[in-house]
């Protein structure tokens, strides 16, 4: 059933509880994360709530620099940006903590490397970031 539903609010409420909520397609099994209404893989009009484990891999690494960072991000310590794929299959761009330039050099030949999700407090809400597993 297609529902007029507050998906975004529920996603952020999930993060407050430490849950990483996505939407799973009942037809093809594709998981949309962050969650949206429909399936972008098979075109199913409906998806259902699913709790993701937060486990995944990082597949590319870009270091932040003057143009690509903001003072607020300093609270995350060392971090990089890149493609993250959840074990449920969703792929998206995300922050991954625990990476500096030296670490990046070490990780590049090992990609993809395991990561897991955690929350990061921003101004008025929690968002999702990732952390290298080995840290």
């Amino acid at each position, binding site marked *: 059933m297609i529902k007029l539903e507050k998906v975004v609010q529920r996603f952020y409420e999930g993060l407050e509880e430490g849950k990483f909520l996505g939407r799973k397609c009942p037809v093809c099994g594709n998981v949309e994360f962050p969650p949206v209404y429909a399936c972008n893989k098979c075109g199913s009009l409906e998806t259902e709530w699913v709790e993701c484990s937060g486990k995944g891999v990082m597949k590319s690494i870009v*270091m932040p*620099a003057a143009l690509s960072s903001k003072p607020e991000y300093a609270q995350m310590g060392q971090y990089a940006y890149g493609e993250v794929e959840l074990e449920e299959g969703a792929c998206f761009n995300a*922050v991954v903590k625990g990476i500096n330039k030296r670490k990046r050099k070490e990780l590049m030949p090992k990609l993809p490397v395991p990561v897991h999700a955690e929350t990061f407090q921003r101004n008025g809400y929690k968002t999702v970031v990732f952390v290298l597993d080995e840290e």
Partner: protein
Amino acid sequence: MGKIGKLNRSVSIIGVGCTPFMYTVDNEETNGLTEGELFGYAALKAMEDAGVSPQDVDFYFHGEASPLNGSNYLTPNIQIGNWFGMKGKGSIHHSEACCTGYLAIDQAVNAVASGKFDCVLTGCVEFGDSVPAPFGPNDTVETPKHPYKREKMTMDRFLATTMWLYDRCYARSMMAPMELIYDDAAEDYVRTRGITAQQMDDTLNWMAINNRRNAAKNPLAIERREFEDIAKEKGFPDVMSYMRSPYNPRMGDFLRMEGVERKCDGAAAAIVCATDMIPQIAKNLKHKPIEVLGIGNAACEATTPHFEIRATEEAVRQVYENTGVKPEELDIFFANDFIITSHLISAEIAGYLPWGEGWKYICEGRTAYDGDKPINTNGGRTSFGHAHAASGLADVYECCMQMRGECGERQVKKLPKTAMLRGYGGAQNIAAILLRTID
């Protein structure tokens, strides 16, 4: 993935117009120019070039990336139609940020191919460097504006408004989607082609050098001083030592300052006409029409990994399949390179430069106007300038002029017959446009 059909009839670009790209408020002569004056100039030049009057034009498309911030307008098309003789004619405004000027051609072509209109104007204007002047302090988009005065838009204010390009629900909150625009393509290129970071740095620098060599020969470009001359003046032994110096600081993981757009003010326009109607509508046309063979479209919102690469692959695939044109038929290539890496990766995706080898062509200067694989002969976004919405049509202007052999000093060696323009922008729209001269 997406599919596109054949146009219902052949459509051609028969006239083009473009203002110089400039910092209007920095010069007495241009300080105080308005939207109607910039757009109107480009529109009238395009009509003159096509040999048509506003009365021959059925409809007009208006593009502007940031009309509220840059012009204090919600419906910019309505405000300026009377500046170029089109009072009362229908029009529409569209806004796809830095891709606006490419989709401006797409929309105009669709409107004519459908049969609804025979001849339309498509134009774009942007004040990327200035905002309407306030009457007092604490100015916001809501406070009243002066009728024509403008003031410099600070980089801080500009960057605050570029946030509007990203989804409020997820992309802004997750940070990485917004920040990857600067270096994602460079990282991907280094990793997938197996070149070193140093080779990438050299390639980025050579793209900036080549763009500037082109702009040096283009009177409409905003930056015309060659890096070679600047390096000499600053006492560097060669141009690359200068490009690697603190004069060209690294601002991204890979990106340096001269690989970033020069945001500025400008307008450009084109007259788009049903090819079979040219003898009736443009009786005095003095040059060959340029047919729009097809346009591929894709869009990847910024949480999508490698959004620029994936969307470019899709748009390029569509337009090649749709038209049957082969990469080896391309004689000239344009890429919206407000992040200069775009110029390399889109030329490779389009097969204009061989996969994994494009960086060598660039470093050998083969992609400058006098090389065998010319790219962005107007100077690109880093040297021609970037008046966001208008840039795509400025590329169309340059491309048509090259195909007509009217580029003077920067005319490419072999008269181009087939061209591709890769539009990009707005976090992120992509268009792949194929043009061919009609003999």
